[in-house]
């Protein structure tokens, strides 16, 4: 009983399509990146909106935003994904649900995964944005209003730009989390990187090579994203401001 290593298996033509197994892994990587970027974009937009709402002087809006955060933060990501993918289409009016289910399966899986990851992450982004805004001196808001800027302009030109600079580090780790969390999309059949590892095991019957290769790819992704965010962090530094080094 011994394990037969076959690293060259990746260069063999895959069981279907024109690619090699290495090509499958590349496709998985591309899917992971596309999924993560789309979800991150959505999380930034929704999270910023919700974060702003949490800090506005209006009970109803801030309450709604708080409820939004609690819902998406207190249900496991996997459960949320299954609800978006399996449950929601059944609860929609039948015509809509059926229309969604007739779409190309990859489109369905991708859409469900983006929406799920996007909302899940947005709840966390929202809390960071809120913390960033709340950590600004209150006088900033007053000074901006005193100049005649409206509340919306105050957020747009004064509070958000500053808050975002302050929260680059936690946002970096959320961004990294999006890439890691995107692996759950494999459970609904989306062929991203983690799913490709499983599929490679199925097709090549070489589990260790497949897992090692995919693990290394995730680590490489991590390095790339991290250095990207370092660059953003440097760009976002405010000269002379405390916290800038």
């Amino acid at each position: 009983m011994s394990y037969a290593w076959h690293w060259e298996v990746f260069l063999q033509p895959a069981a279907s399509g024109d690619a090699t197994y290495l090509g499958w892994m590349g496709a998985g990587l591309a899917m992971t990146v596309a999924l993560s970027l789309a979800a991150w974009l959505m999380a930034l937009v929704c999270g910023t909106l919700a974060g702003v709402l949490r800090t506005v002087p209006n009970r109803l809006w801030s309450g709604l935003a708080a409820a939004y955060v609690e819902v998406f933060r207190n249900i496991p990501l996997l459960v949320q994904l299954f609800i978006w993918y399996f449950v929601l289409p059944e609860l929609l009016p039948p015509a809509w649900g059926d229309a969604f289910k007739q779409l190309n399966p990859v489109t369905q899986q991708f859409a469900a995964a983006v929406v799920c990851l996007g909302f899940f992450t947005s709840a966390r982004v929202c809390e960071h944005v809120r913390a960033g805004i709340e950590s600004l001196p209150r006088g900033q808001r007053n000074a901006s209003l005193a100049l005649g800027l409206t509340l919306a302009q105050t957020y747009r030109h004064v509070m958000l730009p500053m808050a975002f600079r302050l929260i680059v580090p936690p946002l970096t780790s959320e961004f990294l989390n999006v890439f890691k969390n995107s692996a759950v999309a494999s459970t609904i059949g989306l062929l991203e990187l983690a799913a490709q590892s499983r599929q490679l095991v199925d097709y090549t019957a070489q589990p260790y090579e497949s897992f090692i290769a995919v693990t290394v790819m995730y680590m490489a992704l991590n390095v790339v994203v991290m250095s990207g965010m370092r660059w953003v962090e440097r760009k976002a530094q405010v000269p002379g401001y405390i916290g800038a080094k």
Partner: protein
Amino acid sequence: MSRRAFHAAALACCLFAAPVFAAGGTLNKIKDAGAITLGHRESSIPFSYYDDKQQVIGYSHEIMQKAVDAIKAELKLPSLAVKLVPVTSQNRIPLIQNGTIDIECGSTTNNLERQRQVAFSNSIFVIGTRLLTKKNSGIQDFADLAGKNVVTTAGTTSERLLRKMNDDRKMGMAIISAKDHGEAFLTLETGRAVAFMMDDALLYGELAKAKRPGDWAVVGTPQSREAYGCMLPKDDAAFKKVVDAAIARLMTSGEAEKIYAKWFMNPIPPKGLNLNFPLSEDVKALYKAPNDKAFD
């Protein structure tokens, strides 16, 4: 993350990935431990699945029990402890390889690729790969699937056949690979796919779970014949001999036919449905002359 992490990772890979293997064969291992570990499936109806009390039952499972009896007799250990580990189509091969489980009888096709990593016992069943579809869907055979969404289970031979067919005949199908048979059937039942390609016996099994079994039908020309076998650790002739003998005895004595009738021709849990899946020529031939040949 840094270069350091890469070094650490490389180290971890070397540490963990070199599997530690015991010497001395599975029989000795079982004897030393006083226990045997069986791999089973959770929703491969009617081969190996949970009933509503979470007990493992099924055709393959019953055959595996007979094999266990033979092992007990061989080792003269009537009180041998039996442990059950549920496996999925993704992890069943690694789990046999790393010795977590000693034998797996479920619905695993014996093929040459897998023979590189594991051994197979005498075959226990022969299936053909066909389609499950709604009776009013208009799908009669594989040719009708062009341009449609079709579901199959990830990691199965059906998945490969379906993809190959799609490539070769340029059918433009969108193929959904579900995690397991249950999820595949759910995909079909909720209307995400028009047909579910799988081993015919399993399709009949999924039918048994449907909310309205009468709405569904198994159709299409079988695309392949496949032999199910029990998976065993590779290169362990002594262990394989005991299991093979037990299975051969079962088949030639006529007992296998009784087990077959129990699971395929009579009402089965969880809903008391009868699969009505008569004994095929292939299975009859297998019962007459037990063997461990793969069909491909």
